[in-house]
């Protein structure tokens, strides 16, 4: 599977399924493979920087590169201001504009403008050339997109802008962005989900919309937080029976607790399996299965376990 052999990769999925975790793991795996990686965080929470253990730079600026990965926070208003800086080069005027109430109306009214600018900024980074080397600045730009509905809105903006706006600067630029986003050789949209009811339903819809409405190239489906252990009911029953007949209080408790954890894990594994089958049937794209990593606190060490899995899949 080629999971990061693209110029631009979007990681999308329902809230909380592990988009940031997967985007970080992908970035580390690509970095290990010797690539220069830019990881873009769009939702403004700097969780990725935190997970990777680097300081977050100010919005729109690439942070220091560590292990081949540099993190950038992208924020709609900052991207818009940056863009306006190019269109309206006179700083004094620019400030008058962005600080006026009118500007707030403009941005709110042209809803989608911020999203458009965000995607524009991502496009700019993805095709940007390295001033010294002459090659591309980044081998791969990985985008940790906001949760589903909103995430797709970002992806939709360039073609919406191209179709809706009259001839103008935005239209011409939108066309270039659309060309990159819909080119399967250069771009991939990776989906992330867990094998549970709501995320799976949303993923099925999302896959269809990416294909049919957005007409963008789907990459792989990451199924995250999978439970895999399955214990035989007979073993669990035997534990419970032993717990009942044991006369020592500590042993009694231990046996019943081990049994209940075994039943719990088996339950999750069964549930995950059921939804994995649904995904197999309804989202027929290459799949990467990532285990639930148990820990007191999910951090860099847990992340590295997932990186190993991704390298194995790649």
């Amino acid at each position, binding site marked *: 599977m080629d999971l990061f052999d693209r110029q631009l990769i979007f990681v999308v999925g329902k*809230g*909380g399924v592990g988009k940031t975790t997967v985007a970080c793991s992908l970035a580390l795996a690509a970095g290990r493979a010797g690539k220069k990686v830019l990881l873009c965080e769009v*939702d403004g929470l700097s*969780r990725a920087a935190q997970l990777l253990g680097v300081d977050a730079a100010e919005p729109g600026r690439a942070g220091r590169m560590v292990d081949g990965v540099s993190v950038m926070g992208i924020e709609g208003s900052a991207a818009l201001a940056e863009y306006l800086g190019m*269109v*309206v080069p006179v700083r004094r*005027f620019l400030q*008058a*504009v962005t600080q*006026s*109430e*009118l*500007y707030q*109306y*403009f941005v*709110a*009214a*042209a*809803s*989608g*403008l911020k999203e458009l600018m965000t995607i524009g900024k991502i496009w700019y980074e993805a095709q940007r050339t390295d001033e010294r080397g002459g090659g591309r600045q980044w081998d791969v730009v990985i985008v940790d997109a*906001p*949760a589903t509905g909103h995430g797709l809105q970002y992806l939709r903006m360039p073609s919406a802008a191209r179709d*809706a706006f*009259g*001839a*103008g*600067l*935005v*239209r011409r630029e939108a066309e270039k962005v659309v060309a990159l986003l819909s080119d399967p050789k250069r771009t991939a949209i990776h989906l992330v989900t867990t094998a*549970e*009811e*709501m995320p799976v*339903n949303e993923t099925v819809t999302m896959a269809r919309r990416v294909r049919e409405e957005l007409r963008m190239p789907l990459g792989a489906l990451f199924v995250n937080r999978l439970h895999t252990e399955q*214990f*035989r009911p007979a*073993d669990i029953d*035997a*534990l419970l*029976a*032993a*717990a009942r007949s044991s006369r020592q209080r*500590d042993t009694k*408790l*231990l*046996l019943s*607790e*081990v049994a*209940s*954890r*075994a*039943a719990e*894990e088996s*339950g*999750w594994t069964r549930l995950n399996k059921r939804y994995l089958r649904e995904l197999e049937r309804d989202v027929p794209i290459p799949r990467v299965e990532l285990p639930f990593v*148990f*820990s*007191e*606190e*999910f951090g860099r060490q847990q992340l590295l376990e997932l990186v190993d899995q991704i390298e194995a899949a790649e």
Partner: protein
Amino acid sequence: MSAGSRKSIADVVAGHDVVVCAGSGGVGKTTTAAAIGLLGATAGRRTIVLTIDPAKRLADSLGIAELGNRPTPVPVDVKGSLSAMMLDQKGAWDALVERYAESDEVRQRIFANAFYQNLSGTFAGSQEYMAIEQLSQLKESGDYDLIVVDTPPTHHALDFLDAPSRLGNFLDRRVMRWFVRPYMSAGWSGLRVVNRTAGALLRRLEDATGVSALADVSEFFNAMSALFEGWDERVKRVEELLRSRQSAFLLVATPEEQVLSEAEYFCSKVEEHSIALRGVVFNRVQSELGSDRQSMEEDAIVEALGRAVTSAATRRRLARNFLRYETQARGDQLRIESFRDQLSPAVAVATIPNFEEDLHDVRGLRRLQDFLGKPG
């Protein structure tokens, strides 16, 4: 404060007429709201749950999968009654337009207006606002003793609180009047009065980008001026309802670090909104089973399992599985404890385990409901 020394969520529900469930995306707001509804109905109250985007199977079992945008009785055996209703955002805006547009022609123009389509679909705060708008309609109907309000999936739980005033501000800023005045609505000329420099530059921007946003806004506000005249009043009424003693805010959170830090921020801000936080629901918590056994060595556990399970490999797997869960549980517990410590003693708390089954039917909701009744 130790576990069990606080009021239960059920106590809070019993003492209020409106219960709002807020929290970050995906933490279980919709599920909790449904369970609270069931709790109220079981206690004999005429209850309605105003839900947003429920899992399809939950919607099915509540009977609101189709035509859910009006109160629909839920077939459950309870002392009171339970209805559910889905927030239909687009439909609600359209209904407002239907009501306030002065002619068919104006109505059609609004429906076709690009700004309206954005406003009703994706405009920040509009979904939250419509939830609150529908809440006040339900309240005024007098048909219910208890209204449980689910909130839209936002990254920030606070968005819900901000929505009415944010939308109110947006619609009420002084500048907006320029849009509404017919003689000023010819486009940019009116705006120059407000800010010459900005007006001129934005006009250039509009030319360059091909976005005709402000013309759309202007048209929209003209057509809808009847609606917006009463807007201030409505926003104020709704805010008063949310702030009154009849309403309780509950925060739903999972024991993950980023969710809890978001929750912490929420708690620190509710006061600024003059809204009292009445309870916190910790959802999907891995509970600790026995604090003295979780520090046992793997080998010791394997040995203790000796007589019960014959396969050595299975014993090893069982022991590892047990310890993995206990590790996870310890983390959850530590994070929750440090969060609880900062809550005022008056705030009720419930801890709901992470069930290894879907909670998409009344039976599942009942399981959850039991935990809402335990003292925090």
